[in-house]
Structures are given as C-alpha cells and as structure tokens.
C-alpha cells in the first residue's frame, strides 16, 4: 500500500525513483531490480527505468504482471499511475507468445505461436518474412539455424519478443574448476546468468564496476558451462591479463589456453582473442561484402565447437562482431562491462544478440561493502593565460577543444598533484600525445601510447605493478581492461571530448581494493571558462549518477 514513508515514486514516464535513505530502500531495490534497469544512482535518489526490454526480461525469468504491480504499489509513496500498470501488463503479456523451438521431426528450428493471427501478423512483416522458411503447419514457420539471432532482433523491433527455447549446443567438453572463492555478489551474478543451466539463462550481460572482479565471474561462468570457450577482449594487454587470471584462478593447464591476436594465432580450448584481430579487414574486399569474407578472422567463431563466448567490455562490441554473433545463437554468450552506455544506441542489439542484462550492482554499494576502493574525485580548474585566451577565442570550434585541453598550465598542476602523493602509484592519463610526452619529459616518467611496442608496454605495466615505476603516463590505450591493482591516483590531463564511459573507465583503473585500504584519488584537470569545462561536466555525469561527487577546486588550492 502507498504510504508517505515508502521509498518509491513511480512516474508516469515509467521511471521509478528510489529514495535511498528510506529504511525500506534495500527491500525495494531488490524487488525493483528484477524488472527495472538502474539508470543512475546519485547519492540520495536512484532512478530506475521500466522498459519493454526489462519487462520482457522479467517475464522470461517467470515474473508475472501481478508481481510487478505488487512491488510498485507496495513500495510506492504516491498512487501508482494506472498507465504504468497497464503498460506493464501489456508489455509482459507480449513475451512468450512467440517461441523459437526445436522442430520435433527434423531437429531444426521453428517459430511458433498458439495465436494464428499473431503468427500471421509477424509473418507478413517484410524483415521477418525474409528470414522465415516454409510454413510447416498452421502455427509454425521453419527457421534456419543461422537466422536465429536475426529473427530475434527483428521480432524485438516489432515489439513481439520471442521466447528462445531452442536451447544451446554444448560445445566440446572441457574440465575446469574455479580455484578461488567467489564474493557474494559475484556468485549472484553468475547464478543470474546461468539460471541453473536452463534455456532461460546462458546468455546476457553482467554489469559490475571496474575492479569488482568481472574476470573471475567470467571464469566462474566457464566452470559452469565446462566447454571450450572463446573470450573476446579489447587489447593484447587485456588478453594476456585474462590468460594470467585464467591460469591463476582455475585449474586449467597452460597448454589449454591460447592467445589469438595480431601477434599470435593460437586456437586452444580456451582462446582469448582481441576485437582488433576479429574485425581486421582485408584491403581487397568491398565494404559491402559478406562479413565473414571481409573480416576473415571472424571465421574463428565457426572454426571450433565453442560452448561459450565471453565478450569483455561488451559496451565496445563492434558491428562486425555483432553480425557474427547473430549467427551463433546456439552458443551460450556472456557479456561483461562496467558501463553499459552505448553511444551508438545499440542496447536493443545487445539485448537480442548477447542477451538481457542479468545483473547490475551500484558502484557505491560495492564500495560501501569494501569490494572496491573508495575514491574521491576532484576537478581542478586551471586558468588559461591571457595570451592563449585570445588564440582560443579566435579559433574554430574544432580547434578550441584541443587548445583548451592541452593548456600548458595543466602540466604544472599535474606535477604538483604528483608531489602531493609521493608514496603512491600514479597514472597520468590523457588524450593528446604531445601533451603526454611533454609531461612525461617534465617529470621523467615512462609513457605508454598506441605507438609503444607491445613488449615495452608489457614491461612497463609489469614494472608499475611491481612498484618499480611510481608514475606512469598513459594514453587512451589504458582506458579499458588493464589491471593495475596498486594504482591509487589518476590524473586526467585531457579526455575524448564528453565521453562518459571513458571517465568512468579511467576511474575504474583505481578501484581495485588496496592492501592497506587507502582511498583512491581521481583528479581531472580542466581549463576553466572553456569548452574543456563543458565537456568535463558531461564526462562526469555517469560517475555523478553513480553517486560520486566531484569536488571542484582552483589550481592555486592544489
């Protein structure tokens, strides 16, 4: 029943506000997470959004419209708009009325429904019709194995999500056991994805903050599937980190794990490949050519009897890999990310091809539980020198950001910040290579950019991890999936315009809990009264929505 002390405000635009301070907030959050997506979680009021995807996902997990209505009305502070309840009912009742099943006779796939009219309706859609095979009988269409993903995408687009009950191929078996213990939330995440091994699970995305142990979760998923697995990651460094973790956290023999990258082409029972190699395109094929013809390494998907494909940093999944994924819907799929923010708006494709979001943990909640390091975020404002201000003023808009972001005044401030943390491992991160080189030269620190050879990168990362290097200057190559557990200070000199996920990922480099429990510090140096400041405000939105408050100080306060 509604009540003034209840924690939820249910909005007619299908958002739900959760007042964190309410005693009932934890219970409400647990119930809400089953059918709504956490959109942002600032310090006091979190915003969830009920979407068709989240409702279909809830329906696929066995929730009924009545369950959802009971949660909403039970925790609501004000009367729940009837519009919301009718939308919940409408959307949830759509799920499962179309089903993708195995044809009993042939073992092939079929799209079926008890509702003749509905099947007729979707069958007349031009996109769906092109993907369906012959009509088997009154309520079944044949479906080619390779079109399983594409049909699901098209049906989602029509607003009639199909329940995929055709199951998975098991892939070649592999014995693997996890040799470490999972944290509570990690176990919950894997269980939500696995769904007891039924066709209801086995696909989907897990969203956890950087440093929360997504690799371990991936390895745990492997140990559930117990089959040959393809893991796709963002870079060679990340691939090698995965291999190290696989060998460290499981009983796998090193000979069973291979790297498939620009430097090595090993295909082993566990193969870790990079997005770059998979999307490498031969220069002699046309852009419109078949995806497997244009990107020959995508054949890796078909060359082996994989039982699981893991997509690390799934928010970066490139289009060719999407298309390849559409063809392997019979294989279990797991997406991992800290920031499910796709600037290209392809969330629906992630839902239909990789699977729905199965688990999401607020950053600050894990911080409060001690699983990720507490972090303070500070924006340091520097003033641009008068002579550069006029340069900036008369520049074209395209040049302005570069001039503001590379203001030389930032270097002195960054140096002072380094001096403030003499005993800590410091990452200095930036977008512009000249700026990074100037700073590296100024403080005598090693630098890693995209131009740095992989061997030297590995050496420098390793030296940094061992504490032999205290300050490491890095370009955006270190934005993702680089594990630097002892880094506790990051100084951002410049960024990729207003990218929210980049800011979050950079903070993420610091969030691995420290041995002595100390706090991490994230500084972003911004040139005041310029476009740099405006972009900085946008970059900070994801983190502020996760509850991180930025303190803003002037350079002379540092």
């Amino acid at each position, binding site marked *: 029943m509604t009540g003034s002390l209840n924690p939820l*405000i249910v909005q007619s*635009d299908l958002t739900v*506000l959760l007042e964190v301070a309410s005693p009932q907030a934890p219970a409400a959050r647990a119930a809400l997470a089953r059918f709504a997506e956490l959109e942002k979680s600032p310090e*006091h*009021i979190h915003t969830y959004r009920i979407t068709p995807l989240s409702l279909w996902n809830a329906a696929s997990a066995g929730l009924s419209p009545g369950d959802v209505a009971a949660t909403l009305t039970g925790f609501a502070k004000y*009367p729940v708009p009837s519009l919301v309840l009718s939308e919940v009912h409408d959307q949830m009742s759509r799920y499962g009325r179309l089903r993708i099943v195995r044809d009993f006779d042939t073992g092939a796939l079929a799209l079926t429904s008890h509702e003749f009219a509905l099947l007729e309706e979707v069958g007349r859609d031009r996109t769906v019709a092109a993907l369906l095979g012959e009509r088997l009988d009154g309520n079944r269409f044949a479906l080619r194995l390779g079109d399983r993903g594409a049909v699901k995408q098209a049906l989602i687009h029509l607003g009639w999500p199909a329940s995929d009950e055709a199951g998975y191929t098991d892939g070649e078996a592999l014995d693997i056991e996890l040799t470490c213990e999972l944290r509570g939330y990690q176990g919950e995440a894997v269980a939500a994805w696995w769904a007891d091994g039924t066709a209801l699970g086995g696909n989907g995305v897990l969203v956890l903050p950087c440093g929360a142990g997504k690799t371990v979760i991936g390895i745990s998923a492997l140990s559930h599937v117990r089959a040959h697995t393809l893991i796709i990651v963002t870079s060679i460094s990340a691939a090698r980190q995965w291999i190290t973790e696989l060998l460290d956290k499981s009983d796998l023999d090193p000979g069973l794990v291979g790297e498939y990258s620009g430097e090595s082409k090993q295909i082993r029972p566990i193969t870790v490949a990079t997005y770059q190699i998979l999307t490498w395109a031969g220069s002699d094929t046309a852009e419109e050519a078949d995806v497997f013809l244009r990107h020959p390494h995508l054949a890796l998907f078909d060359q082996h009897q994989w039982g699981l494909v893991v997509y690390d940093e799934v928010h970066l999944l490139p289009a060719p890999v999407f298309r390849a994924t559409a063809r392997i819907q019979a294989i279990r799929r797991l997406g991992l990310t800290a920031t499910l923010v796709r600037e290209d708006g392809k969330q629906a494709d992630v839902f239909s091809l990789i699977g729905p979001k199965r688990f999401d943990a607020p950053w600050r909640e894990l911080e409060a539980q001690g699983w990720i390091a507490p972090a303070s975020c500070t924006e340091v404002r520097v003033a641009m020198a008068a002579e550069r201000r006029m340069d900036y003023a008369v520049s074209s808009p395209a040049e302005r950001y570069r001039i503001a972001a590379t203001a030389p005044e930032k270097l002195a401030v960054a140096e002072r910040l380094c001096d403030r943390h003499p005993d800590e491992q410091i990452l200095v991160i930036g977008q512009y290579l000249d700026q990074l080189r100037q700073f590296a030269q100024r403080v005598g620190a090693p630098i890693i950019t995209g131009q740095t050879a992989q061997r030297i990168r590995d050496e420098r990362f390793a030296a940094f991890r061992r504490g032999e290097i205290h300050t490491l200057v890095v370009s955006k190559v270190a934005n993702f999936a680089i594990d630097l557990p002892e880094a506790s200070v990051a100084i951002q000199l410049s960024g990729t315009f207003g990218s929210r996920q980049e800011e979050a990922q950079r903070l993420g480099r610091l969030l691995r809990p420290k041995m002595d429990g100390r706090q991490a510090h994230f500084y972003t140096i911004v040139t005041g*009264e310029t476009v740099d400041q405006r972009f900085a*405000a946008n970059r900070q939105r994801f983190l502020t929505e996760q509850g991180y408050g930025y303190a803003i100080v002037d350079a002379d306060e540092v």
Partner: protein
Amino acid sequence: MTYGSAADAATDRLHALQTGGPEAIAAVLRRLPIIGAAAAGMGPMSGHAGDLGGLRRGGSPVATLDGLAGLLADPVVIKITLLTANRIEQQLAQVAHFHGGSLAREEALRIIGADPGLLDRAADGLAGLLLSNPAMAWVTLRPGVAEQIWLPGVRLRDYADSMVSEQLAGILRRLGLPVPTTKWQRVDALEKALRTREVVEDAIGALGPQEREHLATLFTRGQVRIHELGYDHQGYRGSGTVRQLASVGLVGYSPYDQTAWVWLDVVAALGGAGLFADWAMPEVSARPVIPAARSLVPPVVARLDQLLDHWASGPPQGLKAGGIGVKPVRAAAKALRTTPVEIGLLTCFAVAVGLLAPVTTARRGRGRNQSIDEEWRPTTACTDWRALPLAQRWGRIVRWWADSTSLEASGRAVERYQWDTPRLNRPLARTGFLHALAILVPGEGLDPADLRSKLVFDHHGVFAPVVVDQLVAEARVLGLVPVEGPVGLTRGARLLVSGAEALDDVLNDAAASFTVQADHSVVAPPDLHPDLIGDLERIAHLESDAGARIYRITPEDTVRALDGGWTLDRVIAFLADHSTVAIPQNVERTIRDAAERHGRLQVGAAATWVASDDPALLVRALGVKAARLEGITPTLAVSSLPSEKVLESLRAKGLAPAERVNARPQTPSPTIPSRTRHDGGARLAMLAPDEIEALARRLYPVRGHRA
C-alpha cells in the same frame, strides 16, 4: 405546438420550468453552461446576470425562474441552444422546420425509419433543450428561428429566391419539367419538384459517374468542404462537378465558406434513405489521465511571473501599428523555454487585466506625421497580482480564457501576432469543452481523437475538429489537462472548478522541500508547493514531469535567473533553505562560476559613430562637448545623439565630417592573432584594455547593437 411570439414562448418555458422542477432547471444548466456563466456575470449573456440572481446564494428563486424563462425565449439563447444541439437533434430540427415547424412522432418515424429508441433519446435531448413537452408535440420550433441560424440543407427556398429567373428556368428544363412564367412560380415549381421522388431520381439518373460519386459523398456526409471532394478552393466554379450538381438543383454550395451540401428537400424526396445515416453516436472509452499535474497548480502561473520579469528587464518594443510584434513573443518563448503559443496566450491575458501596458518612450514628427515609440512594460498592478494566492491567479487566467469573447478583449497587443496565438473568440466552445471534461469520472480522460468526435457529435454547431484540437492545445498550456496523453481535467483543475478557495486549502498542505544532488539534478516531489515550483523553474530547467519533477541546474539556468533579477545569494539561499540535503559543492560551484561570468560582456546602444584613420583628429572631435562623444578605440567614438546633432556640433567647431548613411565604421583594425600563429600575446600586450574590449566586440557583433 407553435410559438406565436416571444412572450408566448417565455410563458410556455416558464410553465415548463415550473412543472419540470429542479430536474428541468438542472437539465437546462447542464446543457447550457453559458447560462450558468451568465449567472456569475461572465460570458456573452453576462448582461442577464440580474435576471438570474437566484442561481447565486441569497437570490430570489421565483424571480430567477422568471428570468430564466425570459432568457430561454431570447433569440440569442435559442440560437445558442440550437448550436449546442447534437447532430441528431439538429437534424430533427431541420426536418421539423421542413415540415412547417411541427412534426408528429409517427410521421418522423415513417420518414426516417430510425430506431425508435435512438429517436426517443434524440427527441428528449431536443425537448429538454427547448423545454417543450414531448407529450404534446414532440418537436416544435418557433417559426423564424431557423432563419437566424445556419443549418445546412434547408435553404433551398432562399437560394432559389436569389437566383435569376433564367437560371431557374434552366434547372427546370434540365429536370424535364414545364417552365412557368413568373420567377416566383418557377421557385415554387422547383421546390415542389425536388420533393418528388421521381423528379429527383430522374435528375440523379442523368448524372455522370463523377457527379453521382460526389452526390453520394454529400448525401452520406452532409455538408462538406469543397476541397474534400478533390477540388481546390475554386472548385465550384466553371464546369466542376459541384457546379453541375447545383445546376440541376440537387446541391447547394457556399462560395464564402467553401462548403457544399445536398438540399434537404432532395434527401427527403429520396425517402430518407441515408438522411440519418450518421446517427451512430461515436463510441468513446475513458482512459486514465497521466497524473502529471499532481502539483495542482500548473506551471503556467509561474510562467506568467517569469514573463513579466523577463519583460521588466527588457521591455518589448511596440510596433508602429500598435501592439507587440511576433519577434519579442518568440524571443521570450525561447528565453523561457516554452512555446510562442503559451507566451501569446499569457501576453493577451496580461494586457487584458492590465499587467502589461504600453509606455510612450519617444515622439517623432508632428501632426499627422507624428509617430510614437512605445515599450510594453509590466504595470504596478503586478504587485497586487503577485500578492494573490496562486490558485486565485490560476483561476483568473482560466476564467479570462473561458470568457474572452474576442481578440479585442486583449487590446491591440494581440492583433500583431494573432497567428501565433490561439483564436480566442469561442467562449461557447470553451465552456462546452470544460463541461464535457467535468462530467467525466475524475482521473479519467478521452483520447484527443475520441474527444474530438464526441464533441463534434454532441455539439454539432459549435465544434469542428480543428476547434477541438485548438482547445485541447490551449487547455494543455493552461494546465487544465495533462500536457500529454488522454484529455481529462487534472485534480487541480477539478478543484479550481469547485472554487479557487478549495484549491488554496489543498495547497496549504503541499510539500516544501526537494533534493539537490551532485549530478546537478533536483528531484521535487509531486506535491511540491507551486510557489516553490515557480521559483525552482527560475533557477533550473525541467527535465521530466511525470509525477515527481526532475530539474537540472546548468550555468545557463543560473544566467537566466540572474537576468530575471535574482542574485547569486538568493539562488544559493533558496536551494539551501529548501533542499533536504546540503547543496553538493560542485553544484554550488557551478552556480557561483556562472554568476561570476554573468555581465562581464556588456551590451549597450549607441545612436551615432564617428571614425577616423587619424587618431589626432578623433581626439579633436572628442573635445567637442556638444557632440557627447565617447572614445571606444583610438580611431572610433560613439555618441548617444542622433547623427544630425553630432554633425552639426562638429561642423560648428570647424571640423569637416562627412555623413555615411547605412555604413559600418571603416577603421584600421588592431591586428588579430592568426589561427595558425601563436604569437598573439605579444601584440595584444600593446593594446589598451578598452581596445581589447572593442576588438572582442567586433569579433562578436551583437545583433541590434548599432555603432
């Protein structure tokens, strides 16, 4: 029963009211909200307020009954009554008129062959409207009433009267009938002939396929606009189908409102088939309205305050022809992040109630050539206005909207941008619109399309689809219905209908706090007090209003607040006073930074510029006090005096200025740093601060700033 005179009509209606009792009066008031409005001294019948004193507290019921009966006999009310009749009732009235003002029930049933139940309901409606007694003569109309009103399909006689005799003869010949000698005989012959089924059928049989198709369209749809038949606005001319149909007397058309119709005589002659084909009442189903306005008083009230503040800080110039132009309205809409329609509506209101008035700023020329420069400024009445409780302010805006009879009510201001504002000359429609919404179940509304068809059916002479759409748009602006979704009165609007005091009582229990978060969002509960909503909207912008309101604070919002007269301290104090948590440091910093930047670039107006490539010469000019020159750069000066005065002053001191008309000052430019060279600092170091300012001004010319 036929009424012989207005006095008889009044007597009969009084009798009907007395015998009908409260139900009859209630029925009248329900169907004629305009009479209720008249009792309150509002609307087009407000002059009869004295006759209806008993409808207010303490009035005499007997006198009121007399007054009401008299009012019902008033031709204006009869006209309004018929205009508010629904489609069936109007058609019955047409048939009744066609049959000489009286039609027996059995006769009507025989002609139209309609469902008796449906016919009874329609008859009851019409009887209720006219306060006739169904038992005596179930449909009656006072002779002549129809002449005052515009009813499609009953004007054949008048139309035929207006034709020249030769035209009438031509029609009769085409119908294969003998042609009488005199014009009036020809009119009678045509009227009679077209009541004969055979004649009409023969005429139709002689038509071509396209004529038949169009006739069928007109037959089934009644009166339609000519362009809907596929013609442009002059489709009735020349050899068009409409013209052809008219030439055989089957249809009529109006070149004024571009409509065509089948003569009712023709329809009747065909035995009524299809005459009432459109009797099916629209099926509508109520849906829950989006409860966006749980804050009771909508933002329109605060928006008016914002508009007055906005124009207090920068009054719009009046047009030479009078009124405020479109540009200031649009500029205000942009500045306040709303629509020109809302600004136009509020401007009309502000002018109508004296919150905004023109002030003469200058007079030019003399006698007939004199022109006056005006600015429209908020008046001192604004102080009293703002002292009123919110609900009353909203109530006054709504009441003005409901009662405005014409654009003139708002003075000259609206004339200049009326195409940008809703047309305000439909008080009857607005009253009927509100009434239709008020009788819905609270919390429910109709889809706009359903509401459209219902109102068009229920009040056939009043509402056209476009009028309903316009009213819905206006009601959304006024916050009477939610900004989107099904159209139904908000909780606040219902309370307002019951009296502004009731709304005030509820507002006293409204929430007084919100939450400011580090992501710059401000979350306000659905029941936040409207005063706070108004203030919050001055310093933050609304991102979502779907129950709780979510605002965001940006530097631009702070600048807007400061432009609107707020100070930095007031902004900070307001947030601190009403936020449930401390203002996050980064949010406060955003506000302070924006406030610090505010006003660093200043804009002013200069009437005349004086430029010279010789700084020494310009120094001499600056020494001429009568020219009132002010140096901007070593080669440029400006004066607030007109150019003639400046020229005269300079010439008087022996200087020889040349006048440049419509030219920009041609002065040597200080060097601007190149985009590719980065040594601009050295050059700028040589420039004085005022030169830097002038340079910046030249790089970013401000519109309207004339040097």
